[in-house]
């Protein structure tokens, strides 16, 4: 019981959040600005901070009647200005071909002009605003999903919540929309929250449905840790600058990464939620107290302090000493094949294997279908001794190597399941930030847990951490 009490002192609860952080740091004027999406958008834009472009706004029924629908682009997002919790947001991906004023939603269903008009009427009447006050509806550009996030996000765009206090980014979380959350990145609605290491922008632990700690994205085999959020430093910098211009001393900034424009602000939050602590498995109060009272002059300094205090831990230190990057025994690896084909897989880092080996299906995906077809036609010797292996390889090379441009060699692989002859092809690997040119053999790995293993030859630049 005493340890329970001691450990929980670093956790920020509702009482302390309201009394110690929101009340003294977020003045009413600043709070009102944050609750008003259009005004905060304008303010951010003025400060040269990126926001999704505003297409049009509708403030009353007259404006709705006279609205020029042909001026709308194919895809857009419709939002209530004072909406909360992601309610009342309508996202369309394009116009239906050949039809006048019919749009397509993310799930493929259609929305007619009448549907949209009813929705806007509801927004203007205040159905989605706090305490039902009349509201403004606005259209803004739809963000394009970043390729990296594609496997992780269901129907919507993930966003990154960063809590900033006293110009220091103190904690962050990546929010992934799921089927359950209907494409919304709101934790209450069933999105997954993933904690982020402040120094590197690499994801750590994840929470789903309030309190369930998850390792994989629900319903998939995708590991949630180890995702490296791109533009990390820029995102932190933006968040700190937003705090400066908004006057919110205690801010939750929501940033999304657009496939084309890079990071943009979604909204500012004057009352950031507390679940971010569960996603990071760490208390906010401890972090806030470390930052409180520091005299930070510039945004750069604040970002540096945040990265230093709340991230890194030991991994980066070891890397600094050896100059090698630390990786685990299972890592996400990008494979680049022919004609710019690429695929990302979870690979086993296997120092027991000499060469990298990939599954046939993966090989097909990156442009080596013809290699497999060609190889299957070759009449391979079934029974041979270890000594005879060399002779067989030599024969194979003489006879068949010239027959296909992509095959660079043949190999005999001795494994627990016996001996197999495999064709080798040239591929490139990307492991973290390192790119490696590799010679990989193609194998049938259908029944194995990982569709690829990375062998010793390709691991010279890494240290492998065995957990």
């Amino acid at each position, binding site marked *: 019981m005493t340890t*329970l009490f001691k*450990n*929980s002192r670093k*956790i920020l*609860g*509702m*009482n*302390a959040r309201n*009394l*110690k952080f929101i009340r003294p740091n977020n003045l009413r004027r600043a709070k009102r600005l944050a609750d008003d999406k259009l005004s905060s958008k304008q303010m951010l834009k003025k400060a040269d901070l990126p926001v999704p472009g505003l297409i049009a706004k509708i403030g009353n029924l007259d404006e709705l009647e006279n609205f020029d629908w042909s001026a709308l682009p194919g895809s857009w997002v419709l939002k209530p200005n004072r909406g*909360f*919790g992601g309610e009342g947001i309508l996202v369309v991906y394009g116009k239906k071909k050949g039809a006048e004023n019919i749009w397509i939603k993310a799930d493929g269903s259609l929305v007619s002009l009448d549907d949209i008009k*009813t929705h806007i009427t*509801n927004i203007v*009447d*205040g*159905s989605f605003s*706090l*305490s*039902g006050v009349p509201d403004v509806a606005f259209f803004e550009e739809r963000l394009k999903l970043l390729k990296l996030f594609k496997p992780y996000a269901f129907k919507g765009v993930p966003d990154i919540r960063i809590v900033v206090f006293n110009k220091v980014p103190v904690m962050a979380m990546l929010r992934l929309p799921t089927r359950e959350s209907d494409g919304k990145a709101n934790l*209450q609605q069933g999105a997954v929250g993933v904690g982020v290491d402040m120094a590197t922008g690499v994801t750590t632990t994840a*929470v789903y449905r*309030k*309190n369930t*700690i998850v390792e994989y994205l629900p319903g998939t085999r995708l590991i949630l840790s180890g995702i490296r959020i791109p533009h990390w430093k820029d995102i932190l910098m933006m968040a700190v600058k937003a705090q400066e211009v908004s006057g919110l001393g205690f801010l939750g900034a929501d940033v999304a990464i657009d496939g084309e424009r890079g990071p943009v602000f979604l909204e500012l939050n004057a009352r950031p939620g*507390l679940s971010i*602590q*569960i996603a990071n*498995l*760490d*208390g906010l109060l401890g972090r806030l107290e470390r930052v409180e009272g520091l005299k930070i002059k510039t945004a750069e300094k604040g970002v540096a302090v945040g990265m230093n205090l709340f991230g890194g831990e030991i991994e980066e230190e070891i890397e600094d000493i050896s100059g090698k990057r630390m990786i685990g025994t299972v890592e996400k690896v990008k494979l680049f094949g022919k004609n710019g084909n690429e695929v990302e897989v979870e690979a086993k880092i296997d120092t027991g294997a000499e060469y990298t080996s990939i599954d046939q299906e993966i090989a097909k995906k990156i442009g080596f279908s013809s290699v497999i077809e060609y190889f299957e036609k070759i009449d391979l010797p079934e029974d041979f001794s270890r000594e005879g292996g060399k002779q067989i390889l030599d024969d194979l090379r003489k006879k068949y190597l010239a027959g296909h441009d992509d095959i660079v060699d043949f190999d005999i692989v001795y494994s627990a399941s016996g001996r197999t002859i495999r064709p080798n092809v040239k591929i490139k690997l990307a492991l973290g930030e390192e790119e490696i040119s590799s010679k990989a053999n193609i194998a049938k790995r259908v029944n194995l847990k990982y569709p690829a293993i990375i062998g010793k030859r390709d691991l010279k630049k890494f240290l492998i951490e065995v957990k």
Partner: protein
Amino acid sequence: MNQFVQLALSNGVPLDTLILVLLLPIIVTMIAFFRQVIGIKAFGIYTPAIITFAFLATNEIRYGIAIFVTVIAMGTFIRYLLKQFRLLYLPRVAIMITIVGFSILILLIIGGIYNRTGLASVSIFPILIMITLVEKFVAVQIEKGGRAALILAFETLLISVIGYYIASWTALIGFVLNYPWVTLLTIPANIFLGKWTGLRLSEYFRFREIIKSK
């Protein structure tokens, strides 16, 4: 008996009124305590307080609970029915109050059929209060979703029932009539609660994964 109480009674203030007003500070302080220290939220402070008094005004608390549950159940059901019509807020609430009102009448009639005369004879004041509870319920449904609204309704019921038992505790009533000024001690108690920044009991549960991981 206390002089102040005697003064009030001799000038025509009914005893019931006096007791209720003296108990009110204790009830609302209890609600504040439940929110800040335990973490049971309910629908603000007004709703659980007024429901507590509505329970006191029904003859037996089980009838009060029956009416409360009917209102919430109907509120959930009608919301589901009305969803497709996409009505504006006030007309929608008006419809809900109408239907809830009729449901309560039916409940009272059913009570009469089964010879629960106590139910039918509940006075109009608590019934009206509980019917209008549906507005609060709808507002929370819109703001926080149906599930959260149901949880808050349950918490309101819980707090109101506890409040009912506190307020009908004869020893406490005797005490406040003898020492009416003691109820003012709730003010410093609330100053303490208002400055309390510790974790709520419910937050130890909410953040258990973090506490465990340390």
